[in-house]
């Protein structure tokens, strides 16, 4: 699980062009969206959907589903481990 989380952080930084950040800057439970988190927006949420499909073969067809899944690295890792 911790490997998955570390991989995810690296993938998030790469896919979303968060060049100012390193994986160590992203806490497992920190909110990804909104002003208190990484400040990600709706387009980033769509990129997460692409990331899940390309890297983990998981398909999400309704972007609204993403809201729960993409809350933090923890929720994302949890979802991947259950659906892969």
């Amino acid at each position: 699980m911790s490997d998955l989380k570390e991989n995810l952080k690296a993938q998030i930084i790469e896919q979303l062009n968060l060049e100012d950040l390193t994986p160590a800057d992203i806490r497992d439970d920190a909110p990804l969206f909104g002003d208190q988190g990484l400040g990600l927006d709706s387009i980033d949420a769509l990129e997460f959907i692409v990331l899940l499909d390309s890297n983990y073969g998981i398909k999400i067809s309704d972007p609204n589903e993403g809201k729960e899944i993409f809350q933090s690295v923890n929720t994302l890792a949890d979802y991947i481990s259950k659906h892969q």
Partner: protein
Amino acid sequence: MRIYVTGYGVISSIGENVEETLLALKSEKTGIKQGRKPYTERFKVGEISWTNQELIERFGLTQNASRTALLGMIAAKEAFGEHELSSEVRTGLISGTSVGGMDVSEIAYKDYLKDESDDLNVYKNHSSGTTSEQIAQELGIRGYINTISTACSSAANSIMLGARMLLSGQLDRVVVGGTDGLSQFTIAGFRSLMIFDEEWCRPFDETRKGINLGEGAAFLVLETEETMRKTGKKPLAVLSGWANASDAYHQTASSPEGYGATLAMKSALKVAGLNPADIDYINAHGTATPNNDLSESHGIKTVFGSSVPPFSSTKSYTGHTLAASGGIEAVFAILALNKGILLPNLNFSQAIEETGLIPVKNYSEGHTIKHILSNSFGFGGNNSSIILSAV
């Protein structure tokens, strides 16, 4: 000085000229169907059934070009109609497009990769600017030719720039509008944004899920009164107001309160010297995405308060024709003005809970319509409103 519309032409999935378009509007018949191309077959789209080659033959076009340019030529030719070129009337053309010649480039490129073709001439059609040059060439217009690319407000911005060119005395007459042909590129793009509705789109409905894409083109001929004395043309409508404002919120999403939309509508009213109560019908942008329709509803309520005039989105007829939409909807507005009709918002059943706005549900005639506001909002937060008035 007033700006008059003295010609109009349109092609979309509901008709290949103004007359057919009016018939389809009257019969409440949508042009949106299950797609018939490899890249559209999974979606409901407002496709024009003719292939590029068929378009050339059917409409007697003299150039082989991209779909965007061909559709533009057809609509511009209809708009220009009996108008004649003369050295005494400085005539320009301003066209809006978002994809340019993408439809032919992407086919040619695939063939090239498969070693099936190496006709590099195709790529000459690719540039957005080329599409306008080709449309102008089809009409014989050689003067001021310009291309605007501001996403879905492109045609509305072309109309606005045309009006200003006339007002500033730089042109005497100008053909303005927009065109966009469907391409795999566009389908892939909107798919990536996950804003397609796999069913028929339902603008301003609580259950709306997203857009159906469409293709088409529309052009208007604008003249000043002085020019009309030379050309002897009769006005179809007055272009009385126009404005553009930035939403400054997000690259693709509209601000929740519809701030840019509000600014555009208010400023257009100011240019026209009208009050909100003077508007008899609003042809809304109404793409049927959850975001646009809620944001636009808030904007409309901010401008019109508790007395929102009859409004509808006609994208349920044509699909969202992107850069062409502002032109196509301007043609609809002129029809509505001259025939006293209110155009329905097809597929509507349930008002958006938050705003409670109910659009025009059925086609009806016999109304006194003096002023119509038409909204076109583009990605990049580029929001435009124009006002067309009865002569």
